[in-house]
């Protein structure tokens, strides 16, 4: 026995090696995986219409001001009634994709009615993601994203938002990032309140979304021309259109402008 009182209660150095003093230098903050977003996706825009919802997002993964990855799919279908659109950090988006895959698998397991009553509903997918987002923020280890879950549930359109802070909200029109500043004013001219939803047809809603994607390509410096759009319709089901391009642009507006004031030539 070691009679030195200062060695009592401690594992012996011979057996366990020298005492690791690093624990006394523990950092003030808990482990944070993402402290700043690196590769990012820009806006996700969405709106309800009389027979479903539409959601769209471009195919760009920016690396700061470098438009680095041009084949990023930011709309994730879950089952045949839900689409999850994600903006923000791409690595965290890929983690969420894994979580959703796991969710689908778990739901499938030992489930005879998985195609009918026990299919994953948008509200289930949303509640799960919202819980994950808030819990991660409470551990000071956020998933640096803004997510919109769109779908059809019990024949009614579902549209809800959750972000890295765990904040959630719902509206007939939703958008993340730049879309909130540029696209929402346009979408709200069509669907301003709940009562306007039943007056809006698929054609009008689709054109509004396409128009908004055009304006975003004009004015968001971190956006791309290529994008994807998903329509979840009551009758037609889930339609995911990939490889769409912004069309009918006008770049001729300044052909007669010279200089920035007094210049004439």
């Amino acid at each position, binding site marked *: 026995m070691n009679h030195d009182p200062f060695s009592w209660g401690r594992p012996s150095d011979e057996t366990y090696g020298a005492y690791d003093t690093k624990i006394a230098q523990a950092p003030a903050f808990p482990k944070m995986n993402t402290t700043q977003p690196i590769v990012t996706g820009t806006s996700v825009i969405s709106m309800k219409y009389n027979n479903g919802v539409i959601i769209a997002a471009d195919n760009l993964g920016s690396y700061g001001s470098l438009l680095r990855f041009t084949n990023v799919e930011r709309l994730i279908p879950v089952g045949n009634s839900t689409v999850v659109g994600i903006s923000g950090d791409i690595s965290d988006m890929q983690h969420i994709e894994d979580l959703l895959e796991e969710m689908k698998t778990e739901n499938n397991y030992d489930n005879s009615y998985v195609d009918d009553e026990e299919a994953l509903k948008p509200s289930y997918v949303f509640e799960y993601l919202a819980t994950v987002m808030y819990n991660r923020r409470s551990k000071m280890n956020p998933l640096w994203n803004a997510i919109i879950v769109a779908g059809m549930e019990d024949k009614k359109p579902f549209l809800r938002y959750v972000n890295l802070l765990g904040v959630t909200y719902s509206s007939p029109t939703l958008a993340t990032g*730049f879309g909130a*500043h*540029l*696209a*929402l*004013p*346009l979408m*709200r*001219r069509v669907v301003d309140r709940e009562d306007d939803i039943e007056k809006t047809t698929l054609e009008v809603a689709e054109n509004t979304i396409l*128009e*908004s994607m*055009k*304006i975003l390509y*004009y*004015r968001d410096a971190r956006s791309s021309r290529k994008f994807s759009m998903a329509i979840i319709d009551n009758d037609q089901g889930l339609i995911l259109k990939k490889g769409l391009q912004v069309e009918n642009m*006008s770049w001729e*507006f*300044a052909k007669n*402008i010279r*200089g*920035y*004031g*007094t210049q004439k030539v």
Partner: protein
Amino acid sequence: MAGLSFDNYQRNQFLTSKNSAQPKATSTGTTIVGVKFEGGVLIAADTRSTQGPIVADKNCAKLHRISPRIWCAGAGTAADTEAVTALIGSNIELHSLSTRRQPRVVTALQMLKQHLFEYQGHIGAYLIVAGVDPTGPHLMSVQAHGSTDVGYYLSLGSGSLAAMAVLESRWREGLTKDEAVSLAADAIEAGIWNDLGSGSNVDVCVMEVGKDAAYLRNYRTPNVREPKQQSYKFARGTTAVLKESIINVCDIEEQEVEIQA
């Protein structure tokens, strides 16, 4: 033009390093737009003036007159937009009298940008300058640091993105006056509804070639307060009269006088 003075540079560097916050540029709540049309140009603005989160003036006037046919919409620090517009407006009037010519938009633009550049952005004036002069209709913008831009449709202020979304969606070459007014007013409305820094009413000023400028104050009022539910007038007799005394302060003499025109 006096040279730039860097006397305070060392002091400012010292202050920032000592963590006293660098004064941040504040984009004051506003939505302003300018739109060119066939035969003229128009500007429009909302009417909300804010002090932080508080609405200071529900119906302020953001459209300023530089000269009878050159008008200016101002976003940024209200005192700065007001003062710089009045200063340049005054100088333009003197210049116009001295040159015996109608003032030109590019003159006002040059005077504004040279003044604002001198103050290196500390005068927080973000302006859309528009007007008609012997050279034709013009639409331009000036930023607080002194840069200028030319365009057929422009928007500035915190509500500029909401307004620009509407302008990008519906502007095209060869708009008529009425189409342009409708487009500009809709663009301002986008700012009023979707931007918290903008609100209340829409002001418009139309400057057409060969005509006087038409200042349409409160062109649209989509935020009228609902009528008060009751009349809160006090009925006669609410305040009891205890004593009444009439004192003759002076003698009154009446005299009829005939006035010849």
